[in-house]
């Protein structure tokens, strides 16, 4: 009666679980009905639990309520006769309530419905960005409004994107079978969607830091479901989970209370999450059993190298450049090349870094990406050319996508102005050095 909710994300998890389970029971053509039933169930839980308190086993309460709600919605649609077999199946499920409540006690990772829904969302007929939106909507209980906020897309556009994707999904034969022949192909798409989801949270444009944190958390929760399910727990899955844990470990130092960004070299490493680093390294080790080295392996290895380095200066930058080179061979991308150039600057000095930045193939694709001019600015500043640096930082500032990025770049512009008025000091010409007091002061 007076139990409390396990945590603040309970409804989200339950929403994903219930939509998946009802969709499996009713068939994907009843996806919309399953969503309505879950929506009404959560509303009923708010109403009833407000007065009576949270029940001992809230998951079991929700499961029963959602089933009943689905049955009554089917009746309300006057389709009870037509869909009698489904109602029969639902009733059977009620009949085996004993076995069922045992299932309700199992951790979510042992249930297949959510996995099947996750694989279904990544149907090849659904574009990659819509797959990610669909995962958030169906498995994380995000409203269309919340998804549109997370992706900085208008709500109307997001509603359209979601409804198209749901139409594709509800037109399929059923939830994806985990034993299907194309399991591996689909798993690749699932990993990609979760990677995009995590990145949207980690590097994305949404101004609300809490929203972005939610995206990272959801990506990590869903990848944990894959890790716990042996056929899906491939080396690439482990590597992706490792990458997320190792990157997420830096979040406490990356974004401060005010939502301001601190780049890697200047982060207070004592604020990195040691538990997540340990977990990430464990996962990375588990990912090493296959023959194939995926892009996730390489990215995780880069993150691990940072995680293990005591400081930016003591980071083996040469190794990081090599890992980026390997990553570029696997997945040529101007963003990867940009990160590589930054590592080159750390290893060989800012002039070499600038050369690398200027020779990025397809650099024009970075035209709207504020971190390209920001990187140019950073390296020009290290070369002691403060006015060139300022020009680049200003260009970056015009491209900034949210207040955190703008604040960060405004500070860098101010630093350029400070240095051009005093002239470059010896220190400023040195290769990057995060613990340099003058840099610290500017933060």
């Amino acid at each position, binding site marked *: 009666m007076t139990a409390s*909710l396990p945590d603040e*994300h309970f409804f*989200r998890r339950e929403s994903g679980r219930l939509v998946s389970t009802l969709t499996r029971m009713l068939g994907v053509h009843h996806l919309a009905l399953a969503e309505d039933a879950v929506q009404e169930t959560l509303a009923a839980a708010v*109403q009833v639990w*407000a*007065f009576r308190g949270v029940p001992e086993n809230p998951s079991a309460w929700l499961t029963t309520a959602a089933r009943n709600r689905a049955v009554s919605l089917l009746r309300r649609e006057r389709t009870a006769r037509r869909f009698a077999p489904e109602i029969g199946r639902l009733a059977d499920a009620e009949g085996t309530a004993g076995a069922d409540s045992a299932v309700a006690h199992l951790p979510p990772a042992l249930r297949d419905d959510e996995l099947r829904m996750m694989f279904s969302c990544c149907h090849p007929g659904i574009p990659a960005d819509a797959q990610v939106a669909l995962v958030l909507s169906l498995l994380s209980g*995000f*409203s269309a409004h919340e998804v549109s906020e997370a992706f900085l897309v208008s709500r109307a556009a997001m509603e359209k994107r979601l409804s198209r994707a749901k139409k594709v999904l509800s037109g399929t034969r059923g939830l994806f079978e985990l034993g299907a022949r194309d399991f591996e192909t689909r798993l690749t798409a699932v990993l990609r969607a979760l990677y995009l989801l995590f990145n949207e949270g980690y590097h994305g444009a949404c101004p609300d830091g809490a929203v972005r944190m939610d995206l990272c958390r959801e990506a990590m929760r869903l990848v944990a479901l894959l890790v716990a399910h042996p056929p899906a727990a491939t080396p690439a899955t482990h590597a992706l989970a490792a990458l997320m844990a190792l990157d997420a470990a830096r979040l406490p130092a990356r974004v401060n209370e005010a939502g301001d960004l601190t780049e890697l070299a200047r982060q207070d490493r004592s604020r990195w999450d040691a538990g997540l680093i340990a977990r990430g390294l464990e996962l990375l080790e588990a990912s090493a059993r296959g023959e194939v080295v995926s892009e996730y392996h390489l990215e995780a290895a880069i993150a691990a190298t940072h995680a293990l380095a005591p400081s930016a200066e003591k980071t083996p930058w040469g190794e990081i450049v090599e890992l980026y080179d390997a990553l570029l061979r696997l997945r040529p991308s101007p963003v990867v090349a940009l990160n590589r150039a930054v590592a080159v600057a750390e290893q060989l000095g800012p002039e070499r870094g600038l050369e690398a930045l200027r020779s990025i193939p397809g650099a024009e694709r970075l035209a709207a990406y504020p971190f390209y001019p920001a990187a140019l600015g950073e390296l020009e500043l290290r070369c002691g050319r403060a006015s060139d640096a300022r020009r680049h930082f200003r260009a970056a500032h015009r491209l900034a996508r949210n207040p955190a990025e703008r604040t960060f770049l405004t500070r860098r512009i101010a630093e350029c102005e400070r240095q051009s008025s005093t002239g470059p000091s010896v220190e400023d010409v040195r290769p990057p050095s995060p613990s340099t007091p003058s840099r610290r002061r500017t933060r």
Partner: protein
Amino acid sequence: MAMSEFLYLYRLPADSPNMPSAKNMQERLQKWTAWFKDLETRGYLKVLGHPLETDGAVVTEGGRTVHDGPYAESKDIVLGYSVVQAKDLAEARTIAGGCPVLGYGGMVEVRPIRQM
């Protein structure tokens, strides 16, 4: 001081335009729980009351059912009720002003319970 009792009816428009997300709903629940707890601690809560179903029936003389709910003539769903004690209507209104239902388009109907 003599206290009066008030019936609170928690009402919500039947067709709320915005679909709340799972996160929104959990926040609502937390607010309700905190609100009731606060009323209790401050000695306002006489009867916690109950949540109500949306269906039901209106029955008239001779057991004739006028109609089965949800009630067409009312655009609001009554989510539930409580009995609150306060020194006067003004205070009862102030207390109701903190009800979480107001945060998502609902309202509280405050009705003094007739004493004599």
